């Protein structure tokens, strides 16, 4: 069977994914896509202006088409369908036969028929090509206007704001987001957005756009007022792309949209339509979740199965518009006959919440939330599952008076059919099935069910289901780090902190059993170092350290060590280079430049370490902590000092950061980078802490990772001054150190964090836990008590005694043998050692 699909957007791609998963036999698939790139995340478009690239936005895995064998023709516009002959014609004249045809053509932005709407700098906001045009126009503009105060319009306004323009929103209706929220909610939203410096102009009907005096254009409104602007983005709604269906005789609605039935079939045989181009029951669904449902329904039916139907979709939404939380559920305007309202407004903190309930007060019909959307998950489930409301429904939106959290409904009350993640249509049953087969971690649950992997709004709910289900199954969620301590690392941290515990003996007597092992000893050592920052080779601490920490060097496969002096920010003088070179030459060490912009010296035997370090310390070098679970390097590009594109001094800032956090012990190693401009030559977005310069300051990214499972860092905050950035990094690192598991990198820690990025922002930026001062103080203590571990070691005869191969002999390990390769040493292989190959003595 040959399946042809016209359009490759998010919904179209979901259809292909479903097909690849469900089809029992391979089908020939041809996708005709008008845009120059495969499907990308249109919902997150504005992220493009806060640092994401076109590649980041892609929703198509790079190997999707090669592994499925499906054909994708980009830049290929379909122009005609012959539903009798079952062919599609493309603009280049190719005629392609189909057995089944899927229309996933999406929608286009509606541009109001105003005179002058095609002037230069009048743009729409829909595709990545639009984004490039917006970027280009914004570069030569000072003021920007968005026409349309709906969901997309406000997103577009955020984009203009991010581009540094004076931004205005012009709306025809009397309030913002007129479809989703009511007057009161609109008022609160307006105040909040105005405070961000965005001009809001409601009840304005644009009649024409003409030359401006100060700006490129002047918009003339019907009430006689006008507004000057350099560019205009039209975002006044969408219209279905039904032109090809219309021209080919397939039935479309009076106001547009390809008419489909419950199986997403059009009136032409074997032709389906899904997503924003489809008209079901007189409705166009302009959200991605209903589109995904359609994709699954159409795919199921196309494969010969009628057990899934599309019967309408919930239009509830929760989103963050320019940092303002807004949510709308069901009948937000209370249009149901006899419905009653509960509302709560806090004008000081600008929070507004409203419930619309049935006449008997038993069922939730709708809700509006602005400024505080925590109740969204619970309310949505009450509505979707038609559950009976608690006796006092107002408790769902009222802040609890004693400071505790408002009452929720509890995930246990949800039926198995409850859709927890509407983006990916994951039910509670799906989550429970995964938990049943052994998933016990939030990160794993997300990756195997796909729940909370799109908008992430349901992350907390998914976490609650996991916790509740594990408890119900009697699964004791064992976080014991080993047989000696029945505690997680986080619990151990708190025990040590609260009990002022400074030695392992004290720790294990009070809270553990046995002698300890190679798991709990280094964990305790790391916790002590983060808390008290004493020299790690002090007597009771030395025996807890892994060999790398114990010898302050990195053990290699043959038992020798490598040495890494700190080179902050990767900046080094010629004298420094010469000294390192001379030392390497003198001790016949192998030298290599590391990925972290420093120099690694390999092949030192244990007894050589102190003498080599004596020379390095005397020359002014200090320990690079390459051996520790601690800050490694702060990589940097050359920055504005030399680079013609740089906007900030990235090297200088990298050095400052490296010097502040050097020696900090943490659950796992930490890597930083600082880029001097948006070109990102330091690859900061792959680091635990990444800093990228902007015209106004620095953007701070966190929780990135290279390694086995790469993860892009996420923007925590933008346009920060250096001082604020360091404050946030202090808080972020200490919060991670307090709460992460043993050997858990920031990326995995973040994936398992209930509440996700929003929660992290709340803790770090808004200080929602009230611990920011404490975290900063603790970091300041670690910074103040920093001392070079090697400098201390070489000056302490007790410590130096440990650096010997044998307690009873000055001989060296004769099993350490090197051979020459490319002008340097390397460890001999077993055969070489056995003498089968001549070994060159060095």
């Amino acid at each position, binding site marked *: 069977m040959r399946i042809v699909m016209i359009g490759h957007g998010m919904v179209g791609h979901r259809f292909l994914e479903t097909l690849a998963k469900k089809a029992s036999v391979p089908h020939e698939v041809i996708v005709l896509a008008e845009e120059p790139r495969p499907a990308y995340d249109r919902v997150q478009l504005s992220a493009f202006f806060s640092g994401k690239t076109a590649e980041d936005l892609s929703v198509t895995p790079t190997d999707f088409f090669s592994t499925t064998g499906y054909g994708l023709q980009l830049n290929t516009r379909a122009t005609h369908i012959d539903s009798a002959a079952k062919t599609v014609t493309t603009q280049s004249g190719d005629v392609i036969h189909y057995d089944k045809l899927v229309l996933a053509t999406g929608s286009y932005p509606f541009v109001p028929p105003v005179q002058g709407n095609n002037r230069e700098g009048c743009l729409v906001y829909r595709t990545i090509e639009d984004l490039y045009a917006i970027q280009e126009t914004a570069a030569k503009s000072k003021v920007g206007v968005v026409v349309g105060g709906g969901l997309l319009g406000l997103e577009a306004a955020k984009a203009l704001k991010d581009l540094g323009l004076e931004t205005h929103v012009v709306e025809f209706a009397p309030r913002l987001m007129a479809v989703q929220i009511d007057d009161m909610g609109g008022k609160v939203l307006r105040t909040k957005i105005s405070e961000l410096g965005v001009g809001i102009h409601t009840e304005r009907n644009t009649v024409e756009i003409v030359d401006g005096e100060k700006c490129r254009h002047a918009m003339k409104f019907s009430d006689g007022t006008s507004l000057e602007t350099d560019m205009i983005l039209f975002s006044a709604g969408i219209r279905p792309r039904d032109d090809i269906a219309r021209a080919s005789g397939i039935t479309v609605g009076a106001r547009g949209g390809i008419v489909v039935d419950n199986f997403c079939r059009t009136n032409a045989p074997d032709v389906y339509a899904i997503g924003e181009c489809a008209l079901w029951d007189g409705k166009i669904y302009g959200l991605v979740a209903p589109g995904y449902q359609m994709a699954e329904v159409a795919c199921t039916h196309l494969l010969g199965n009628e057990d899934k139907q599309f019967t309408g979709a919930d239009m509830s939404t929760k989103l963050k518009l320019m940092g303002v939380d807004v949510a709308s559920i069901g009948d937000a305007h209370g249009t149901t006959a006899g419905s009653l309202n509960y509302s709560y407004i806090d004008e000081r903190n600008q929070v507004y919440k409203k419930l619309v309930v049935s006449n008997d007060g038993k069922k939730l019909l709708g809700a509006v939330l602005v400024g505080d959307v925590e109740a969204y998950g619970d309310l949505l489930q009450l509505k979707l599952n038609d559950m009976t409301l608690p006796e006092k429904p107002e408790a769902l939106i009222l802040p609890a008076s004693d400071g505790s959290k408002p009452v929720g409904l509890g995930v246990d009350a949800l039926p198995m059919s409850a859709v927890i993640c509407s983006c990916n249509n994951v039910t509670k049953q799906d989550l429970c099935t995964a938990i049943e087969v052994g998933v016990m971690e939030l990160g794993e649950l997300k990756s195997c069910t796909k729940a909370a992997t799109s908008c992430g709004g349901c992350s907390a709910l998914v976490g609650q289901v996991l916790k509740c289900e594990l408890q119900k199954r009697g699964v004791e969620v064992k976080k014991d780090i080993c*047989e*000696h301590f029945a505690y997680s690392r986080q619990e151990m941290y708190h025990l040590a902190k609260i009990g002022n515990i400074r030695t392992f003996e004290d720790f294990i007597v009070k809270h553990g059993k*046995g*002698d*300890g*092992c*190679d798991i*709990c*000893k*280094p964990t305790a050592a790391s916790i002590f170092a983060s808390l008290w920052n004493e020299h790690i080779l002090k007597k009771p601490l*030395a*025996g*807890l350290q*892994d*060999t*790398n920490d*114990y*010898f302050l060097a990195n*053990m290699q*496969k*043959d*038992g020798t060590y490598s040495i890494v002096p700190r080179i902050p920010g990767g900046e080094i003088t010629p004298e420094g280079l010469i000294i390192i070179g001379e030392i390497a030459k003198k001790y016949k060490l192998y030298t290599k430049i590391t990925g972290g912009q420093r120099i690694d010296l390999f092949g030192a035997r*244990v007894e050589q370490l102190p003498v080599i370090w004596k020379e390095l310390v005397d020359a002014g070098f200090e320990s690079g902590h390459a051996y520790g679970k601690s800050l490694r390097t702060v990589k940097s590009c050359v920055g504005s000092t030399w680079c013609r594109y740089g906007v900030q001094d990235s090297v200088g800032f990298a050095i400052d950061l490296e010097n502040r956090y050097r020696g900090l012990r943490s659950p796992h190693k930490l890597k930083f980078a600082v880029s001097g401009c948006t070109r990102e030559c330091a690859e900061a977005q792959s680091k635990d802490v990444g800093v990228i310069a902007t015209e106004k300051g620095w953007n701070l990214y966190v929780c990135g990772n290279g390694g086995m499972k790469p993860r892009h860092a996420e923007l925590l905050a933008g346009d920060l001054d250096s001082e604020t950035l360091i404050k946030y990094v202090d808080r972020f690192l200490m919060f991670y150190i307090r709460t992460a598991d043993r050997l858990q990198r920031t990326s995995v820690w973040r994936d398992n964090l209930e509440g996700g990025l929003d929660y992290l922002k709340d803790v770090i930026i808004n200080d929602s836990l009230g611990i920011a001062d404490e975290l900063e103080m603790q970091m300041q203590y670690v910074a103040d008590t920093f001392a070079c571990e090697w400098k201390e070691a070489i000056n302490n005869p007790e410590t130096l005694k*440990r650096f*010997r*191969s*044998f*307690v*009873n*002999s000055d*001989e060296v*390990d004769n*099993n350490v043998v090197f051979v020459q390769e490319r002008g340097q040493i390397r460890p001999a292989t*077993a055969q070489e050692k056995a003498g089968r190959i001549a070994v060159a003595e060095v």
Partner: protein
Amino acid sequence: MSNLVKICPVAELPVNLGVGALVNGQQVALFKLNNGDVYAIGNFDPFSEANVLSRGLVGDLQGQKVVASPIYKHHYNLKTGECLEDSTVKVPSYQVVVQNDELYLAV
């Protein structure tokens, strides 16, 4: 009959840590635990083929006193030299004798 070879004063051994010793050309790893007991096993780790066991962390697992190899983290029983993760692997173990505060090894 094995010979006793004098190594060093017991006080030279740090508590809860290992040290290497060279005995008739053989590398040995010595460990003195909290209670003063001293153990000796071969220093050579068969998995990494390097002389590193004296540089591992000591502790107990399932009631056995063990050292963890610092390279691939296999655990060896300090009394018997048996590898906990692979019962087919065993490193040599040596009898230790303390006389007049001096440590001797039976080889």
